[in-house]
């Protein structure tokens, strides 16, 4: 069964919006829970939490190009340093109609690559020395297309919104829990409604976990979207599929295990072997199978 990359793209875009909507609903539910448990006097934490998570996430979003470069020790290169890699990125930019990003190399034997930057004009895409060693031109083109797809789809922005919302929920729930423990005597108007109180406490506990799950889920949808958009750019699912097969076969992971940059890599350095709801990437086997379907070929083993 052949799958069209356009159908994949619109499905993943739709799911992203749905998930962001669910996160927003979680915020509203949590605020309601706080209000119903403690009354109106602690509403001030909402703007405070918004402020804290906005400042934290958005400064890193705005500076994402230089921050991630510094954290991963990536070195920006030009055409003379790696003509083929530079050419490949230029090709993909022509296909995507995007401006040429900064191209960087991370000295790391594990094959991997990432893209970041607040907008296409400030984008950086980086490759490890390992990936340049193990992949041929067609595979690297697939990887570059996947990374440029993140740039074109504005995934740094999408993930910043998701991170802000998750941070907001964590802060509100945290303050709520502290007030519940240390200032329990102050709840006024809902003591006569035990069901509402129980629901509110459950929301207080579950909201931050739900936020993390939704955030991971959004990240997975953006990865699938980037795979589909990469195919739109190159019209060659084979290159990316073969690249992912090489990554799947390779057991090594990049040394950067920091969660703050984990989601940017093409293959997650954190996700375990077994499938989990907290994974930032879809299982690599599923990504390969989907690309095979885009090639119009049957999945492996059939």
């Amino acid at each position, binding site marked *: 069964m052949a799958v069209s990359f356009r159908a994949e793209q619109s499905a993943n875009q739709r799911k992203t919006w749905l998930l962001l909507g669910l996160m927003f609903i979680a915020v509203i539910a949590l605020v309601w829970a706080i209000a119903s448990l403690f009354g109106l006097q602690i509403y001030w934490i909402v703007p405070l939490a918004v402020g804290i998570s906005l400042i934290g996430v958005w400064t890193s979003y705005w500076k994402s190009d230089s921050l991630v470069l510094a954290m991963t020790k990536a070195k920006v290169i030009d055409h003379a340093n790696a*003509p*083929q890699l530079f050419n490949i990125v*230029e090709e*993909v930019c*022509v*296909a995507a*109609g995007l401006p040429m990003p900064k191209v960087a190399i991370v000295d790391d034997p594990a094959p991997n690559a990432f893209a970041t930057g607040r907008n296409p004009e400030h984008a950086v895409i980086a490759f490890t020395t390992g990936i340049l060693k193990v992949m*041929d031109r067609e595979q690297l083109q697939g990887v570059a297309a996947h990374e440029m797809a993140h740039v074109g789809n504005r995934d740094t922005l999408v993930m910043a919104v998701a991170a802000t919302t998750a941070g907001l929920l964590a802060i509100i729930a945290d303050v709520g829990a502290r007030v519940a423990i240390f200032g329990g005597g102050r709840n006024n108007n809902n003591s006569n409604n035990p069901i509402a109180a129980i629901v509110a406490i459950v929301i207080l506990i579950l909201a931050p976990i739900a936020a993390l799950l939704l955030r991971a889920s959004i990240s997975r949808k953006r990865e699938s979207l980037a795979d589909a958009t990469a195919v739109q*750019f190159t019209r060659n699912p084979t290159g990316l599929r073969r690249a992912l097969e090489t990554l799947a076969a390779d057991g090594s992971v990049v040394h950067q295990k920091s969660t703050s940059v984990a989601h940017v890599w093409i293959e997650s350095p954190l996700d375990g072997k077994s499938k989990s709801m907290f994974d930032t990437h879809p299982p690599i086997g599923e990504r390969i199978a989907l690309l095979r379907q885009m090639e119009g070929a049957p999945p492996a083993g059939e």
Partner: protein
Amino acid sequence: MASMWILIIVAVVIVLLVLWAIALYNRLVKANVAVDEGFAQIEVQLQRRFDLIPNLVATVKGYAAHESGTFEAVTQARAYGEKATTVPEVAAADGMLTQALRGLLAVAENYPDLKASANFLSLQEELSATENKVSFARQFYNDSVRTLNTMIVTIPTKFFVGMAGVKAREFYEVPDAANRNAPTVSF
């Protein structure tokens, strides 16, 4: 009071309709600009390919001076390409040059010393990258044309075609089907 509410609602509806019309008009104009930009990009990439040719021809000549027919075909196709202006002309010249370069690379296959030279290897990489860029530029242009041409015949954008002054555009079609594929450059 009721009449004032009706007036407000009518006014709001009119404003929304006008905004909607402006948005559709802008979409058409932007789609048209995207086609122009797409064509400009093809020309940029073709120019880059033209620029590579003297160097490539000189390098191959150093090892295979007597294959003059091949060099002539390349030089001719390049000259033809530099004069072309309209979409079908540029596309035809593009096809001719792709064909001629394929011949040149086939000639190079017969000269192991040439194939192994560092200069030729780097030219080969530049040439295959340029071929890829040309073909991606064609793809981007044709996608832009498809988007515009679809908007021109579908509702509601169809109603604003006259106002925006846009016309259906030509696809960039390389005449010989075999020429659509870049010459195979092995690594």
